[in-house]
């Protein structure tokens, strides 16, 4: 029975057209000679060269890179621990509260999270700057990491952990040599997700940040409010390209590892 009908192909074409056309237009018009974003004036890379001279934008990019790298790394550790806590310890005091606090930030409107973090930083007398932005980003992105790692842990065959322990491995060694390699792809995608979430965030950063810590989205937003310019198209194109290359590379690597792992398992079974 074939349900791969022309209606289905039609909806996919339309759907993906809708998803990708706006981004494609944005990329194409970043190479526009004309200053007008909607009128084609010939091919040019002048907006990319003008980006190189924009010191404020470069500063913001540097701040964003540091924030994203630091917050993603810490969020990955915290999120992985949270995922372990949720899947391995089914009974502890406050588990309902804990899982609630993991899922709530996924849907919480940014304005609420941003405002509450800002008021918290003021209440504890923490000067607003790059540190507070990093703390804020860790808080929401660790929940995404937790969800990604948790779904991998749930499909994880725990008997191989038990086998390692029966063979005399300590729990720490079991975790490092058995559990971690299996969940590693999920941990890596968790890190990447945390990194891009931090790279994208505007609202929470605007609340949590202070003088001297302007992130790239904050800078882009303030320029967008003044009007659409090809320069913003150029920055956006660079960001989109980085994320796309990152996501595709990661998925190819994950796919290869998965194939390799299946082969290894089959080989192991064949020998046994």
């Amino acid at each position, binding site marked *: 029975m074939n349900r791969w009908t022309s209606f289905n192909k039609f909806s996919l074409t339309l759907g993906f057209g809708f998803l990708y056309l706006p981004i494609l237009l944005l990329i194409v018009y970043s190479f526009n000679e004309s200053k007008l974003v909607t009128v084609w004036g010939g091919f040019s890379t002048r907006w990319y060269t003008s980006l190189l001279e924009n010191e404020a934008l470069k500063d913001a990019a540097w701040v964003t890179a540091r924030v994203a790298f630091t917050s993603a790394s810490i969020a990955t550790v915290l999120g992985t621990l949270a995922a372990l806590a949720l899947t391995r310890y089914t009974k502890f005091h406050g588990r309902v509260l804990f899982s609630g*606090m*993991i899922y709530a930030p996924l849907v919480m409107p940014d304005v609420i999270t941003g405002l509450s973090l800002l008021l918290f930083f003021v209440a504890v007398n923490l000067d607003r700057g790059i540190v507070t932005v990093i703390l804020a980003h860790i808080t929401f992105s660790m929940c995404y990491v937790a969800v990604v790692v948790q779904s991998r842990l749930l499909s994880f065959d725990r008997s191989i952990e038990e086998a390692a322990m029966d063979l005399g491995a300590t729990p*720490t060694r079991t975790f490092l040599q058995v559990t971690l390699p299996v969940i590693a792809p999920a941990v890596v995608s968790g890190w990447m997700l945390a990194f891009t979430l931090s790279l994208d965030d505007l609202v929470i950063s605007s609340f949590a940040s202070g003088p001297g810590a302007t992130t790239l989205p904050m800078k882009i937003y303030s320029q967008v409010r003044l009007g659409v310019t090809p320069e913003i198209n150029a920055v956006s194109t660079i960001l989109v390209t980085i994320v796309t290359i990152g996501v595709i590379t990661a998925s190819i690597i994950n796919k290869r590892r998965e194939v390799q792992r299946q082969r290894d398992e089959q080989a192991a079974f064949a020998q046994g």
Partner: protein
Amino acid sequence: MARLVNGIFNRLVIAVPFGWLLILFLVPFFIVFRISLSQTAIAMPPYTPVFDLAAGWDGLKDFLSQLSLDNFIYLTQDSLYVKAYISSVTIAFFATLLTLLVGYPIAYAMAQAPRTVRPTLLMLVILPFWTSFLIRVYAWIAILKPEGFLNQILLYLGLIHEPLIILNTNVAVYIGIVYSYLPFMVLPLYSALEKLDGTLIEAAEDLGCTQFQAFWKVTFPLSLPGVIAGFLLVFIPATGEFVIPDLLGGSETLMIGKTLWAEFFSNRDWPISSAVAIVLLLVLVIPIALFQNAQTKAQGE
């Protein structure tokens, strides 16, 4: 010794992320609640009373006696706020329905696609989700402007004679929400539809159902968990959305996220913005609880 180390490790696995979220997620809400009961002041921080630990018991009494519900009463008196809440929920609700209508055929087609192309299709849905929200909203400004791409095409085709005014209206906000949140709708729908047993539909058709009846009586009810998850994943954040109404909406667009932002950054009224946030949270508390419930159930299976 090893057992002791292990015990400590086990505890840390729970305590570290738990503690982090308690301090940086839960405690801040109590602070927002506290400040929503304060008065605006021209000082830093711009509210009174400020709780002074050094003043001891009297300080606490003094502090409690100064708390008031004035900000919440103010919210009910100024019709602007009430209208903003109602219009946020309405816009978010209908935009979410639209997202469902657009997303369902996509998810359905993905689930019917040959097994070999599914990972690629999935990748194509996920990729925009990774791409900056701000950039994706920004891309629509150039499309919807009076001299933008959409009007250029429609004028060229002779379908219209004057440019349509779409940017800075609620229509643009709807388009923005559907576009930005589409992956959040498609992913849970796809995962529900993919699990569906195809033989059930064959059985329904063998028993005399038309294709549409089979869809409506078998496929759709079985995909309901995905519909609910997708609906909540879009509706809740869309209600408090700031970027879309700010960049694509106009003066007619009243949305509470924008109101909160303006109260905070333009009027610098911290107690009122806190009260706005608390009421928004109350509006969303039921959908958020439903979402958490659905998530916990899904993970349990």
